[in-house]
């Protein structure tokens, strides 16, 4: 940026604006494959180290290299970690999108950009800082081949200076990110400093945004939901994992492999207390899971919508033959290949009823990384207790983005391996039937190969309580009714909803999964801006329990907030609620592929409540997509 640019900008109103401390969002626009991930993580972590609540979201294309990608970091002193639609601080590194990125900014925003992009003439209501990245990188990295890798670190240095992030913290964050690669760390530190120095000597600050130390993040961790779930699986004692790579679930199995190789190798023998198989497809993945759990192992797979579609027939087999299976569905945007790298909650109906005939499945819905961890463990208990598939319904936003969280606590208490027949139990029962409802809860006792107890023939064809082949109408009905009874028993065992009843609220929100953070923020907005009070029912499991109708009864109108087009959760609820209750249900639907944000919820609810809604901010992220899905 030339000195005249600066001088001109000094005249602008934006500079007089009040300081905005620890409450703004930064968007870094780059090209995927350019190695910006490290720089973004360092920026994110250094803000966390400043004690400021922070969240990071990656909006990336389904592509290996060359397409636009955006990383958004939100600092929020109030602890809001949902996506914010508005961008306050833009780092424009991508020639292809820079112009549009700048044009869609809110007035008063700031832009750090790569000098050759010549963006400063585009608007006069935002602040521009031009940085000659190529020149700077040349000075810290003589080897031209390595420049691409450290170039992005320069904007971290610039931002450190402009936002007031301590450089020493950034260096620590960098060391954490890069691990033991001393040479790489040194080179990146050089780039950081070059950026910092350049900003220090060249720029006068004209934007209002600043990071100041807080004390809100002591002891907190930063982790992706997929890694959190993986830790949960390991702690649950999973022994057999079968998977087929697919975004956004791959990193669940990949981090699991990493953790297991470290913590699940027998010290004495050097042998693994687990097996991971990369199967030939998702059909085979689930087949292996079913075979393994049928033989008594704790077993799981992870996939996304296309994989779930393929698993249909096996899911029905597991339901009907009653074998445990833990299936993580890290949801992405469908239908079909859809937007493979964007988030959605669009597999609910498909998972709930996956397979033909009268089939229904248990679903768990974690909202946080901590719940990804705890519910992973619960999923194994429930799958074995109910001898049935359990779907853990995550999404890309949760699975692949880094979230701030309290550290996870070590599981206490034993695991539940379900009703396994023992010699004593057999004596007590006198006679054993594989599908006999001994206890009245619909859950039969099972044996596994090699346990020396009575064997049975497992089949997906009609069978009676003894497990024998049967096409008799009464056997069929009896068995199906027992399965329904078993499903009813599960209502009391899936994670209970978290309910915040507000006695002043006439409307209630129902949400689940990652919508949670935007919902909480929206509830605050509604009170602060329009004095609309709400209650909140955060659903965590399916089948529903009796808390649901009670919540509906306590309110005049219910907004079910979900990230899909067809109000899938509302459809599920309609199946069980009375017509009077159903008449209270409304929807807030968000399905652009971007994580849901508070403003969208607030505006939508206000509009439905009959308020004038000022304006709709448009979100800007558009990327081509090809390959790599």
């Amino acid at each position: 940026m030339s000195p005249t640019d600066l001088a001109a900008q000094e005249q602008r109103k934006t500079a007089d604006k009040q300081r905005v401390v620890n409450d703004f969002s930064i968007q870094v626009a780059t090209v995927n494959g350019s190695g910006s991930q490290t720089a973004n993580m360092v920026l994110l972590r250094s803000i966390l180290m400043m004690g400021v609540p922070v969240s990071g979201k990656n909006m990336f294309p389904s592509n290996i290299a060359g397409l636009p990608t955006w990383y958004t970091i939100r600092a929020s002193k109030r602890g809001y970690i949902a996506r914010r639609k508005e961008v306050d601080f833009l780092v424009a590194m991508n020639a292809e999108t820079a112009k549009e990125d700048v044009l869609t900014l809110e007035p008063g925003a700031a832009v750090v950009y790569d000098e050759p992009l010549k963006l400063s003439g585009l608007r006069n209501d935002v602040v521009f800082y031009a940085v000659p990245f190529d020149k700077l990188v040349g000075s810290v990295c003589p080897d031209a081949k390595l420049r691409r890798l450290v170039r992005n670190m320069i904007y971290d240095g610039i931002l450190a200076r402009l936002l007031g992030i301590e450089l020493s913290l950034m260096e620590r964050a960098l060391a954490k990110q890069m691990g033991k690669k001393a040479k790489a760390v040194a080179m990146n530190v050089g780039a950081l400093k070059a950026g910092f120095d350049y900003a220090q000597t060249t720029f006068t600050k004209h934007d209002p945004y600043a990071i100041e130390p807080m004390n809100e993040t002591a002891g907190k961790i930063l982790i992706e939901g997929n890694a959190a779930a993986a830790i949960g699986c390991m702690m649950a004692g999973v022994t057999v994992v079968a998977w087929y790579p697919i975004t956004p679930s791959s990193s669940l199995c990949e981090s699991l492999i990493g953790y297991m190789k470290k913590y699940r190798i027998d010290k004495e023998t050097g042998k693994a207390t687990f097996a991971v198989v990369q199967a030939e497809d998702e059909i085979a993945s689930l087949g292996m899971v079913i075979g393994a759990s049928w033989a008594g192992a704790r077993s799981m797979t992870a996939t996304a919508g296309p994989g779930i579609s393929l698993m249909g027939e096996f899911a029905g087999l597991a339901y009907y033959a009653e074998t445990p299976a833990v299936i993580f569905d890290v949801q992405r945007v469908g239908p079909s290949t859809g937007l493979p790298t964007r988030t959605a909650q669009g597999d609910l109906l498909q998972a709930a009823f996956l397979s033909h005939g009268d089939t229904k499945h248990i679903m768990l819905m974690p909202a946080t990384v901590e719940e990804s961890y705890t519910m992973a463990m619960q999923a194994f208990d429930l799958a074995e207790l109910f001898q049935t598939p359990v779907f853990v319904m995550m999404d890309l936003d949760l699975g692949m983005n880094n979230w701030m969280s309290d550290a996870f606590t070590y599981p206490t208490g034993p695991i539940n391996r379900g009703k396994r027949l023992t010699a004593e139990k057999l004596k007590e029962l006198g006679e054993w039937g594989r599908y006999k409802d001994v206890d009245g809860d619909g859950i039969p006792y099972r044996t596994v190969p090699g346990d020396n107890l009575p064997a049975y023939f497992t089949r997906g064809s009609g069978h009676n309580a003894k497990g024998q082949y049967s096409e008799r109408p009464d056997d069929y009905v009896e068995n199906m009714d027992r399965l329904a009874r078993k499903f009813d028993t599960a209502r009391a065992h899936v994670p209970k909803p978290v309910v915040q009843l507000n006695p002043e609220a006439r409307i209630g929100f129902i949400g689940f999964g990652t919508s949670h953070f935007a919902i909480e923020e929206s509830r605050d907005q509604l009170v602060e801006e329009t004095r609309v009070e709400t209650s909140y029912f955060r659903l965590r499991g399916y089948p529903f329990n009796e808390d649901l109708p009670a919540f509906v009864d306590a309110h005049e109108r219910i907004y079910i907030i979900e990230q899909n087009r067809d109000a899938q959760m509302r459809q599920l609820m309609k199946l069980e609620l009375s017509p009077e209750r159903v008449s209270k249900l409304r929807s807030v639907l968000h399905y652009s592929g971007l994580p849901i944000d508070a403003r969208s919820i607030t505006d939508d609810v206000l509009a439905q409540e009959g308020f004038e809604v000022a304006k709709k901010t448009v979100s800007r992220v558009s990327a081509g997509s090809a390959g790599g899905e």
Partner: protein
Amino acid sequence: MAPIKVNRIGLEPQVYKGGKTTLCAGCGHNSISERIIDAFYEMGVDPKQVVKLSGIGCSSKSPAYFLGSSHGFNAVHGRMPSVGTGAMIANQKLIAIGISGDGDTGAIGIGQFVHLMRRNLPIIYIIEDNGCYGLTKGQFSPTADVGSTLKTGVVNDLPPIDTCALAVQLGATFVGRSFSGDKKQLLSLLKAALAHRGTVMLDVISPCVTFNDHEGSTKSYAYAKEHDDPVEDMTFVPFFEDISVDYEPGSLQEVTMHDGSKLLLKKLEEDYDPTDKLNAMKRLHESARRGEFATGLIYIEPDRDDFLTQLNIVDEPLAGLPLARTRPGPEALEEIMEGLR
């Protein structure tokens, strides 16, 4: 009363029987079930350790008709290999036998079949091959030969899949072909299969008397009897039996199996070495070109690591590991958390 006949682990033949068959009288699949019963009895396999797996089809029903005291899993059409793989990983002490059909394997299940062969999972995988879909009433299957006809006169124009050639090429370590009507050869192959560690793939021509036993079928009893082309004369000597066989010197190839059992292979009209992959492929194609089918032990690789060995899992079954061994301690979690701060 005569003493009750028992095998080497003290079990009566009765224990190895299964439920009464519901397949058509004369169906080749029933003869294969009988040979399986004989082989498991004679080898003294503990039925409690056996898992029987299958897909869907008349053939896939047959695990209900042998080894009634073993666990069985009649899975979904074409996908038994994955279920078997999961079960064997969960408990590598099990002995797995999978029964499939030519449709179950060659059509809907070809993908899982291919990957099963590649992995060399310890399993005995049998295709009861009748060249048609029995259970859905006689349509052609992918193993039907070019020019063979349905009862209705419809002619098959597509080349068959040779499951043995596929298995050899893909990495199965024991590949054989037989005919449900050849009691001696099939029994020897099955017993040898039990002595092998790795994937055993047996394609057994097993005529469907109801839909594919007519003139014009190349999978009928008559056709099979006439066109059976054995590659060798095989004698199986289990490790627990001490048998000496007299053969002319030089006419005999001896193969030592995983459990110490021996296969004595007597050469027929031409040299056949079943440990030579190229030779095996050549012979399969040569027989097919003559309109015959090569039977016997087509290929064996006795020493290759099986899939479970490659996975490097602990010696005890994974399914039975106590939580103390499958849940890392609090210090592990703390270390992970520290890395994330």
